[in-house]
């Protein structure tokens, strides 16, 4: 089992792992057992890698790079939107990994630490560039009457028409534009959750937020994305 599996395991929600294996005929308990065994081996492999990094082993850095850089690049690129910026972030992250490995106390998983370094570097880059334009979410959030019913009725179910109207690449472009409007931390939460499949707890550890704050940000971001998609399709965001 390689360290790659450590991140691989994190990249699937328990639900998706279960779904896949149950379809293959394995019981839920067996699936959980196997996932735990894989994770435990991966954590062990990561511990060895971090020890070598602490000892200044350059080959260990290259090993870590080979295992994790593709995933971290994906995260950085999705948060930043620019390939050149993502490259700089990944360079910085692995330099930090090499120089600061001794400061890694093992309170979180190695992969969580790597995600944290990557997201922090990306958010720092956004802050320094001052390119980000804050968008008010309010316009795209659902609205309600005083009695708690939807303000605009009927609420249109456009869930099937999204795929009909847009080809896959058009949909991706549309989503990129919509994601870009999210506040940087919210975007990071969405990327780690929906693209990387991290649990709320793992995202909280990565971003130094409470689990409750992660849920709130994720929910609000999804409501904003939903409203934005509704408007793109010619419907009310409400």
């Amino acid at each position, binding site marked *: 089992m390689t360290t790659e599996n450590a991140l691989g395991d994190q990249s699937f929600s328990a639900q998706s792992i279960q779904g896949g294996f149950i379809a293959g005929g394995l019981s839920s308990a067996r699936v959980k057992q196997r996932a735990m065994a894989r994770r435990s081996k991966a954590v062990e492999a990561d511990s060895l890698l971090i020890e070598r990094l602490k000892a200044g082993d350059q080959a260990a850095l290259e090993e870590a790079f080979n295992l994790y850089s593709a995933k971290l690049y*994906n995260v950085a690129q999705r948060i930043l939107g620019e390939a050149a910026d993502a490259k700089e972030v990944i360079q910085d992250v692995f330099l930090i990994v090499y120089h600061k490995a001794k400061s890694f106390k093992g309170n979180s998983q190695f992969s969580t630490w790597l995600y944290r370094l990557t997201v922090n570097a990306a958010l720092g880059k956004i802050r320094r560039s001052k390119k980000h334009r804050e968008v008010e979410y309010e316009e795209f959030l659902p609205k309600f009457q005083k009695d708690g019913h939807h303000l605009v009725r009927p609420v249109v179910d456009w869930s099937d028409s999204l795929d009909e109207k847009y080809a896959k690449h058009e949909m991706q472009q549309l989503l990129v534009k919509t994601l870009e409007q999210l506040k940087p931390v919210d975007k990071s939460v969405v990327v780690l959750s929906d693209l990387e499949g991290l649990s709320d707890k793992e995202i909280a550890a990565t971003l130094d937020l409470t689990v409750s704050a992660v849920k709130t940000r994720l929910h609000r971001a*999804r409501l904003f994305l939903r409203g934005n998609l509704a408007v793109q399709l010619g419907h009310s965001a409400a």
Partner: protein
Amino acid sequence: MPKTINISHSLNNKTCKEMTDLVLGYVNNQLNSRLKRDFERHLDLCPDCVSFLNTYKKTIQASGSFDPAEMPPRVRDNILNFLRKRIRRLATLLLYLISQLAG
């Protein structure tokens, strides 16, 4: 003219606004059995919330459907070369400092 459906609070205990607050917990299967039952009872009565739930789920599906941004091999090689150079430079500097201290 939108069809008006009078949803009695006493029947399902939840307003559409409250349903919206619970939808994340519902899709993640994190609601307790009582809340889940109330949520589903409301869905039985309210087509607006069914539409809302379907579009919320679709949004999650869409935002999770991104193809990964792949690191081009050239960029990968550039980063690795950059890291090797920086580490070599640091090692050289350390050796120099040690030799100065020893000398």
